[in-house]
């Protein structure tokens, strides 16, 4: 557990009153200036909204947003940013978490009334749960293979089926997840901070130019990195790169599919076999250009996979194949077991 000091970012009078009643500082916009209650010094507002995808962390604006966080840090000890849903400062919160380890949370939206702090504890200091202890390194154990299941969003029965299949054949299973999973062991909780994931290796300064340019191009083309879990791959690599884990098989369970590029990393970093599993598959967009783009991305992900599986026959026809010899198959529990058995087997047999 760690104690954080809530600071509310809002221009809403009602929310401001609630915050003041709790003696929480309030940061509000006053034209091109940010003001904090009880603080004489103001801070210039670099842009009306902080939007990493739109370039808020490029060189020009990044310095301004850094100043804002430095200014908050000067007056608030270990801040917990409390934001309105859809706040102009949403990316600021994510960036603060990615680069400074601050907490951030959202006020609730009360139908007919607007944002409210009612869902949040009113104590002067907020206790944030400590980050879950990361699993110990997945060392090699003679005779026992290791599998990593990578999944995002709500836990599903199919994801459970992959874990069960792996355990039935004696694989030790780690799970990489964007959230805590109750009742599951060896879970690597890797937060998905959206485009703020791209700042994980950048320090508190501007975004890496490569990522900044890629974001700009993504906006132009509408590529899937802008969709669900689109930048989570970067967070996953940032998490696993320094760790001495060793996985034989990595199963990427979708949807969402935005992180499927992690398969190439798994293949390169661990020499792992990669399974891409589509529990369901969204229909391709009606717009032909958009559809071609998404199919191209999916084909690229599948090129790094050793197996591509789906849950049922209808989904089979929707998935983009990666080559003339590539197969996509329906995998149920029994087939999952067989597939994992084959993929995790390193033995060589001479003919």
């Amino acid at each position, binding site marked *: 557990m760690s104690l954080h000091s809530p600071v509310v970012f809002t221009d809403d009078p009602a929310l401001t009153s609630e915050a003041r009643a709790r003696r929480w500082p309030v940061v509000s916009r006053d034209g091109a200036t940010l003001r904090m209650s009880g603080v004489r010094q103001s801070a210039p507002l670099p842009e009306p909204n902080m939007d990493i995808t739109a370039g808020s962390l490029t060189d020009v604006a990044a310095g301004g947003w850094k100043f804002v966080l430095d200014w908050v840090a000067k007056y608030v000890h270990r801040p917990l940013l409390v934001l309105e849903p859809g706040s102009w400062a949403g990316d600021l919160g994510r960036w603060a978490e990615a680069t400074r380890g601050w907490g951030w949370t959202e006020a609730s939206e009360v139908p007919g009334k607007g944002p409210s702090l009612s869902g949040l504890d009113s104590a002067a200091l907020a206790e944030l749960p400590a980050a879950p202890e990361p699993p110990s390194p997945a060392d090699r154990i003679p005779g026992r293979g290791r599998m990593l299941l990578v999944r995002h969003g709500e836990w599903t029965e199919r994801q459970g089926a992959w874990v069960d299949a792996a355990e039935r054949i004696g694989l030790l299973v780690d799970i990489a997840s964007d959230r805590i999973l109750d009742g599951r062991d060896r879970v690597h909780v890797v937060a998905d901070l959206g485009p703020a994931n791209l700042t994980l290796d950048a320090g508190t300064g501007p975004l890496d130019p*490569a990522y900044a340019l*890629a974001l700009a191009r993504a906006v132009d083309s509408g590529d899937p990195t802008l969709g669900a879990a689109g930048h989570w791959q970067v967070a996953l*690599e940032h998490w696993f790169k320094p760790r001495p884990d060793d996985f034989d098989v990595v199963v990427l369970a979708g949807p969402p599919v935005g992180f499927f590029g992690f398969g*190439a990393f798994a293949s390169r970093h661990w020499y792992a076999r990669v399974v891409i599993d589509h529990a369901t598959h969204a229909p391709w967009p009606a717009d032909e250009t958009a559809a071609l783009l998404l199919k191209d991305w999916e084909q*690229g992900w599948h090129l790094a996979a050793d197996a591509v599986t789906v849950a049922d026959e209808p989904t089979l026809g929707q998935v983009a194949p990666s080559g003339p010899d590539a197969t996509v198959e329906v995998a149920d529990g029994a087939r999952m077991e067989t597939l994992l058995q084959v993929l995790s087997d390193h033995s*060589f047999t001479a003919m």
Partner: protein
Amino acid sequence: MSDPFDQLRARHDFVLFAVTYPHGWRTGSEFVRQRVRAYAAAGLEGVVVDYSPLNVESARWQPEDDAPVLSIRADQLASAIDAAVAGGSALLAHSPTPVAIDELRARVPGGRLAIWFHGYEVRDYRRLHGNTDTHTLTAIRHIRDGQNRDRFKAAAPLFADPAITKVFVSATQRRHSEFDVGIPATNTRIIPNFIDDDTYRARVRQPGEERRILLLRSFATHNYAGDIAVKALDLCSRRDGFSDLAITIRGYGALFREAVADVRRFDNVTVTEGFSSTAQMAALYDAHGVALVPTRYDTQGVMLGEAMASGAVTITNPVAAIPEFTDAKSSLVPRGNDPRAFADAIWHLIGHPEVMPKMSTAAAERVRAQCGRDQTIGLELELIKELSA
């Protein structure tokens, strides 16, 4: 001053267009020069047009032993093609750029043109997904995607044109290219690269020679998979008997030093960084019983073929086109991208030296039958004759 294109306008047995050709100080595309040399040895008279983007001077001829080379700037390509067409020569093009494909299609009567694809030219770059890490790919993805688009757009009408001969080095390469371009290729030939069994002369390996192991590989990019073999050797180092092996690692490239770091410490492993000439390679293969030829992608596997031709017992991976060029009788083929399986394969040989003579013989015979002169240069000479008719 005479027009450098005058010589092109004369009739030749062939005019070969190459986007890169080894001459003078320039290396690379040795496999193209090998062909020119072979055509010359068969009595054909031809010229080479090198339109490398590195060429900055205007067209000038350079004498070479096998065929004169005309170096031109890329913007002179159209003129050079027109001159060659005027001479009535057969036109051969190796690894043409998308612009070159368009120019050749527009200017050359299809029945006189053959185009060779060796690998990258009509292949989705993501088939070699391990070659770039995420950060690098993020930075250059738009360039790579643009290259995909340009290449496939140029190749599609070419594939559809039944008059122009398209030469691939393997059926796998053709299949992958057709998928990536999105259209079946008409009028194709599958002609592998020639493996010179005079240079890589077969010697039957005997039991005992399995302990002399060679890893001779480029470490320029991840797809050459030198890291797999090195990691496999490191795994083998934990087995009894490893110190009885004599292991040579020779290669060069950006990944070399990092890849070999863990095995340099072993007394029985000799690590040398550097380029090897053909003669040096042949000598190295001859001096060893086993050649490790790991790979993550190959359209043929010329180094594998050279090692097999020399009679070395090879350990490679059954990925991409490799299964077209070897089999379990001629090589050990542990699954791809798996240092553990590769290590098991190495140790299988150590434990079964009796297989050495049979595998050695099978390997050399297979290469002779599949990639010997008749099946490669011979077919190309016939093709050139057809184009000249």
